[in-house]
């Protein structure tokens, strides 16, 4: 007689890459919806084009490196990368801009390193930084937020994205974001009181951006409560940014924005909940994640306040990606049973 013995684990979890990615995409929907309400069809066109290019680039690379194409496409990681990059780009970006960004994100930052799980840098942020350095003019043309009335119809959006951008419409459509505006004005010696009456400043942060940020944060907090990702990195990043900004505001309120403005403007919330939490390019231990997040928060504040770029989230993430292996090296979880100096179990 033969007894079947089954070894543990007996209860299998429901986690797979595609399920996690689906949850992340679902958590992005509130933010995407609010962004669409403020900026119109340009947000959707960005996402559709980016996802299309990303799937094509991923498939091409998988074919060339002779890996299973369908299985990797179905894990949805390329879709998440493309979606994040599309949300970070100004709405109504021309198609070639999106294509260049996606090629750098998917081909250079991800597939050349061996695909999902090996990329040392966050692919979406690599794509964003390449575009920011190569095409700074296109990367700062954000449309003026108009709630509920899209500035361009669908047909106009397509025309705009695939070619004819007339400069007169461009001037009418776009305006400086609060971060751009305050960087330029503070650089010319203005004080915050003088510039905060500008239309780009809202109640808490920047007009429209504050609500988009809140929507991203809602999605992100839901992900943390569903235990899709740990809380350490986003909390450390936001706390560091908020703390530094508050200290400097106490020091000189006419030159430094407060913590709430910093947290609710630019790409901070998107970065905190969807970029810094990247399990591949970040740190592996919880202590490491705290250092990683704190580093990103501090670098964002430094680059925004004293650097040449109005928003530093993408650079801060790449710089900390660089440091992540080193942080991991120093925050290794001790092997069970290791004796520390004090004689305690590590």
């Amino acid at each position, binding site marked *: 007689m033969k007894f079947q013995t089954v070894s543990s684990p007996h209860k299998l979890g429901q986690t797979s890459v595609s399920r996690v990615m689906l949850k992340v995409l679902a958590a992005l929907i509130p933010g995407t919806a609010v962004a669409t309400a403020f900026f119109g069809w340009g947000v959707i066109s960005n996402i559709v084009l980016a996802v299309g290019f990303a799937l094509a680039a991923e498939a091409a690379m998988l074919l060339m490196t002779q890996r299973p194409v369908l299985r990797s496409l179905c894990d949805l990681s390329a879709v998440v990368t493309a979606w994040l990059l599309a949300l970070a780009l100004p709405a109504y970006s021309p198609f070639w801009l999106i294509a260049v960004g996606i090629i750098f994100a998917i081909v250079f930052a991800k597939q050349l390193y061996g695909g999902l799980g090996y990329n040392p840098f966050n692919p979406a942020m690599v794509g964003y930084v390449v575009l920011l350095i190569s095409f700074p003019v296109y990367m700062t043309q954000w449309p003026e937020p108009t709630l509920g009335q899209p500035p361009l119809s669908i047909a106009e959006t397509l025309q705009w994205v695939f070619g004819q951008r007339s400069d007169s419409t461009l001037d009418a459509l776009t305006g400086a974001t609060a971060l751009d505006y305050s960087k330029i004005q503070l650089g010319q010696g203005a004080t915050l009181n003088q510039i905060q009456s500008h239309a780009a400043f809202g109640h808490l942060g920047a007009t429209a951006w504050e609500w988009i940020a809140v929507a991203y944060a809602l999605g992100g907090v839901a992900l943390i409560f569903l235990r899709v990702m740990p809380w350490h990195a986003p909390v450390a990043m936001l706390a560091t940014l908020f703390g530094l900004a508050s200290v400097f505001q106490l020091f000189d309120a006419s030159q430094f924005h407060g913590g709430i403005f910093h947290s609710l403007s630019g790409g901070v919330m998107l970065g905190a909940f969807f970029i810094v939490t990247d399990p591949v390019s970040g740190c592996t231990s919880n202590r490491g994640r705290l250092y990683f997040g704190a580093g990103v928060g501090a670098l964002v504040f430094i680059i925004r306040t004293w650097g040449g770029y109005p928003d530093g989230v993408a650079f801060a993430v790449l*710089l900390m990606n*660089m440091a992540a292996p080193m942080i991991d090296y120093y925050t290794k979880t001790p092997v069970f049973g290791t004796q520390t100096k004090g004689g305690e179990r590590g």
Partner: protein
Amino acid sequence: MFSDLLVSYGLILLGTILVNNFVLVQFLGLCPFMGVSKKLETATGMALATAFVLTLASAASWVVENSILQPLDLVYLRTPAFILIIAVLVQFTEMFMHKKAPLLYNVLGIFLPLITTNCAVLGVALLNVQKDHSFMQALVYGFGAAVGFCLVLVLFAAMRERLEAAEVPAAFKGAPIAMITAGLMSLAFMGFSGLISH
């Protein structure tokens, strides 16, 4: 007065470590950056050895430039003179390491004498002359360049150790993917541009 001086030294340090990092922004000293970054331990040893030579060479070349070459009107001998100083310093470091850290000496091998030809070392000495630095400024400039070099070399080595496990496509294994990584690191360092207005 004293605090102004400190601030100016601080700015030189910040500038050489981050904003104008010798490796990632000015692209000097790439050979050891690529050559000895495969293992974290050797990279740390190399970084410290180069840092020592860089700082001393920066100060020594300033002294030679300002007390020998310029008074005697021999500035056309600047390049060979600086290379001679660097070579002497490297020889000294090599002898010291041979005695004190023979294992590291063997591991570093040919790369140790090659510090002589590290363009960052000569670059710092020549930039000191070009920028008309004072002795203290030259010392701080050399030290900042050394710290910046150490920082990126050690970070790069840690990244490359992790890359060893990655399933990099055959054509990109080894040096090519290291080059791409270095390029992406340089991209990240562009974020520091404008941090200090000159």
